[in-house]
């Protein structure tokens, strides 16, 4: 149905019939594209999850079965995330962040009974929900991305240097809360996400570079403030990199075993039974979550490892294409944020497995065993799919808002 309006000179803020006609057409077209770049991410994620299940099955077939169950739950969750327009996330950003912060503080409260917050290895990170454990830091991660995207979309001052420092300082709040748990690994994910989103939003590269350089040069000064086991891991890495076998059997044993098994895989891998034996007798710790990449490389060799990395590359490419094709600034930033956080996690995990980075408690997305991390990661896939699915809107739509406001 067309509405005729009186022709008038084009003026900013008014619309012409053509624009109206187009917009009306757009009002009628379905707002969802079923074939979109986001499926690339979904396929890559699915392949990675299957690889993960196979890797877990090398040593623990019961866990593999459970992981299938987690995968199903996660995929459902992702689809649920994909359905409503992601605009609602923008609106719920601040409440979500506050909820996440509240949960983070909740986990840290010492009076909370152990039936709810069960410490594992001295770390208070998980809330016990009966069927699975749930990490508030995962929620915090997603909330952070969304909140930061909202912030960046409505502000401009991050083009200046001082303007950068404000969000950086505000990011410090969730970071510190996660760090206290302690969870150094997860904390380390916030910063690359922050930088990536800022770069995508348009902050000046030299400002970002300056901050990174300053940060790296101050990092060694933080060494004394680290917990002993965190310091141990850095010592162990330094020793390992120098080829010094001092710590191979005590604090550095995880890294040493992982590197041995990665190397043992050779180019083509050693096959399931042999890999299972080698992993068992070399006492690889955490072989189904933190160190799962070592299992992959041991069983399928360098080619297997390269395949996994390539699948991640496909995933990231899909995500970046989603960001590129999306015209909505919020959507773009959320996509970039998700990709950045996943990329950092993948790099830190694989880096620690192959001996380039100190051991942290980070798992490999999609591949590692774990209900809460699987669901949380797939939820992010759902968000990506959500963003990719939405028909790109014209710029003019935005002017609607400004006109009313």
């Amino acid at each position, binding site marked *: 149905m067309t509405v005729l309006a009186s022709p008038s000179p084009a003026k900013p803020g008014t619309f012409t019939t053509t624009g109206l006609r187009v917009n009306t057409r757009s009002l009628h077209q379905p707002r969802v594209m079923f074939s979109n770049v986001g499926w690339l991410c979904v396929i890559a994620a699915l392949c990675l999850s299957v690889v993960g299940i196979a890797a877990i099955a090398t040593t623990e077939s019961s866990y593999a079965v459970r992981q299938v169950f987690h995968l199903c739950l996660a995929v459902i969750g992702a689809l649920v995330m994909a359905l409503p327009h992601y605009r609602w996330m923008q609106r719920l950003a601040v409440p979500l962040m506050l909820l996440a912060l509240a949960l983070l503080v909740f986990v840290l409260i010492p009076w909370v009974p152990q039936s709810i917050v069960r410490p594992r290895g001295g770390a208070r990170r998980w809330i016990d929900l009966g069927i699975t454990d749930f990490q508030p830091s995962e929620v915090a991660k997603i909330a952070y991305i969304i909140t930061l995207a909202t912030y960046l979309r409505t502000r401009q001052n991050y083009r200046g240097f001082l303007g950068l420092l404000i969000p950086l300082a505000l990011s410090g709040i969730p970071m510190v809360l996660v760090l206290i748990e302690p969870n150094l690994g997860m904390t380390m994910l916030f910063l690359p996400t922050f930088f990536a989103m800022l770069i995508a939003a348009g902050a000046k590269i030299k400002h970002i570079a300056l901050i990174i350089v300053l940060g790296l040069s101050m990092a060694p000064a933080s060494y004394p403030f680290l917990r002993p086991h965190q310091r141990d891991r850095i010592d162990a890495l330094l020793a390992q990199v120098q080829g010094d076998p001092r710590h191979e059997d005590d604090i550095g044993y995880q890294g040493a075993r992982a590197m041995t098994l990665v190397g043992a895989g050779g180019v083509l891998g050693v096959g399931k039974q042999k890999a299972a034996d*080698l992993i068992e007798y070399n006492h690889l710790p955490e072989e189904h979550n933190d160190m799962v990449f070592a299992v992959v490389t041991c069983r399928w060799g*360098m080619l297997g490892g390269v395949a996994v990395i390539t699948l991640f590359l496909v995933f990231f490419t899909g995500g970046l294409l989603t960001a590129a094709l999306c015209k909505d600034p919020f959507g773009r930033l959320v996509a970039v944020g998700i990709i950045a956080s996943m990329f950092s996690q993948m790099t830190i995990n*694989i*880096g620690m497995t192959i*001996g380039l980075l100190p051991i942290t408690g980070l798992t490999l997305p999609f591949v590692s065993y774990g209900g809460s991390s699987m669901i949380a990661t797939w939820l992010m896939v759902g968000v990506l799919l959500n963003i990719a699915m939405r028909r790109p809107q014209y710029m003019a739509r935005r002017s609607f808002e400004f006109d009313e406001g």
Partner: protein
Amino acid sequence: MNKDKFIPSMFHRRLVLVLGVIVLAMSALGAQMFRLTVVEGSVRRAAAESKLDRRTYLPTTRGRVLDRQGRVLALDQASYDIAVEYDVITGSWMAFQATDEARKKVGRARWTELNPEQRIQAINEFLPSWQAKSDRLWFEIRKAGNLSAEKLQRQLDAIKADVQTKAVSVWEQQFLREQALYGTTEVQFQARPIREQSQPHVILPRVSDDVAFEFKRLQMELPDMFEVASSSRREYPWMNAEVPLPRNSLPRTIRHADPVTIKVAGVADHMLGAVRDEVWAEDIKRRPFFDPETKQPRDLGGYLPGDVVGTRGIERVFEDTLRGTRGMVNERRDTQERNRVEAEPGTDIHLTIDIALQARIQALLSPQYGLTRVQDWQNNQLLPQGMALNSAAVVIEVESGEILALVSMPTLAMGEVMNPLQKQINMPVVNRAAEMPYPPGSIIKPLTLAAAAKENLFALGNSIECEGHYFEGKPTIARCWFYRERYGMGTHGPLGAEEALARSCNIFFYTLADRLGIERLTAWLGRFGLGRALDIGLMHPSTDEDGLTILVGERAGEIPTPKVIQELRDKRELKYSEVILGIGQGPVTWTPVQAANAFATLARGGVIRDATLLTHDPRGSRPPRCEDLNLGRPVVEAALEGLRRSVMEEYGTGHHITYEEDKVREIIINAEKVNVWAKTGTAQAPAMPMDSNRDGVIDKKDTPLKGVDHSWFVGLVGPKDSNKPMHAIAVVVEYGGSGGRTSGPIANQVIRALQSEGYLPGDADAPSAAFISAAGEPEPEDDGGDE
């Protein structure tokens, strides 16, 4: 409007930047993976596979050392040790156990809530029962080991002190090493408990099987507190003996109708050597069990901590032969297949010595017997009567060159009970028979004669005139011993070779030495084995103070080198040194074993067969020297005749001793049914170190005693009817003075010892020695070889 923020081109550029970072990171990961899997892949695979092997190592035994009669001189003896855990010794074990029990009873949650006083209260409830267990254990140990409470406590305190000191020094060393390598500071250094702090310590070593069994039963009541460990100890069953020696053939001052039993300790200990049960870093470096890179077993004969290593003597020289190889059982954890390499015990070493003869000769040389003390008949003007003297004796079988006895006094065992000053004076560590070069003195004369005769510089049958002093117009140097106040400035007149040897006329041999010249005489002495270590089987490498590797265990002695000859020439002393070389003075020294060896060579007519302790050398290193000096019968006969006359003719220096007070004479060699050919020697010795200022230590402030002589008696002995020498004997008494008077009677007893042990016909009525095993019970000697 904020359009410029989202200019597609800028945003997309940024995205490309992000993608670039991603690809870069992935390449880094890929490169590292390539390095691990391809470059280091095989090494890592091997390392990972090695964890699939479950290896156990099978123990082995060290080879034995046997004497010529097959008696076992050194062997591994299996036994049990009772070893108590270090924590039980210090008492902390009981505290841990009580704490554990208390914590379990109170409950983990409640435990964290208790304050320290409440905790201690809870622990104290349980402590007594654990304490009672510890008391029970110590009670049983005291009972089994027959130890008083104080003695046991002293032992435990010693262990604790020892471990603490060791811990401190180990940590210090570790800290310094880490500091040197990695720049650690004290804060970063982590002192981990040393091995000894988490190990059991032996409280009752080598208990009997019954006791071991009782303790094994006790272990069921008191678990985890102690260990009944099977061990093996290196035992030397023939180390101590009681030797009954007859005294009826001794010089009258000490003669007695009844025999005396001499206790000897450390029989052949210089030769046999010792082992230590600590493996040092250099042992592991020399022969590691595990390859340092791959950590796989490389050499099953290699060293592991806790192994036994030879430190000196035969145990050290033949370490690699005596050491066996371990066995290995390798089980693959995945396939369960096993393969097994059996352990090989070490190879036995057979020595040529006769331990019973060795013990007997050692008893003869003991000061307790009397012959090695300063006695009246020796006419020693410089040393006090009754002073004990150090000595050495060697017996070699002429035909084969095998050493039947190699005795050095004092032995190492005797040295262990000496105070530092005595050790400094007597040097018990030195094996005088092979490691102490002495000036030969007149003993060398038969060799001078042989050299001159072979060089056709002296025709046998000719004479040389002794005029008292050699150099015309210089009556005070290069004199005959006869040309002295005491003997009325006597001269021998013209003498043939045999008589010159028997009378030991110096002039005769100055003449021969002069005719030979120093180079030729030196060359001949070298042919007879001087100036060169004989390598009888005691030489092994060692590091000296400067870090250089030298060979120790035997010394080569000294003969004039071209450099020394040149120096003498420059100092214008060459002529003098040349002539006195003929009588064994000047820059010439040899060890007793070289002396006996040279005489054996002479007896063989010049056939070289270097003296040896081994029936065959398992090292198979060098082929034995096979040379023949071809002395020829006339030379040998002349020399032997001279030596015979020395002992048998009244004018011979080895014939009799005279008692000063009543001028009574006694024959030196009174053994019957044997022929003896021998030479006495009174060699001018370097000044004797003394603690003259009695400050308890010998240093530059003390004046050494000058004018002393070493006493030599070296010769050959054979059965009466065969007229062929069968054994070569060398006896030397340090600072003993006259050769015939001091060493002569000893050599006489050595001959009688050979008779007692059946090597020579004659006096076989001497009772056999009783050897005492380490546990203190005398074992009857397995007598090998009566007549």
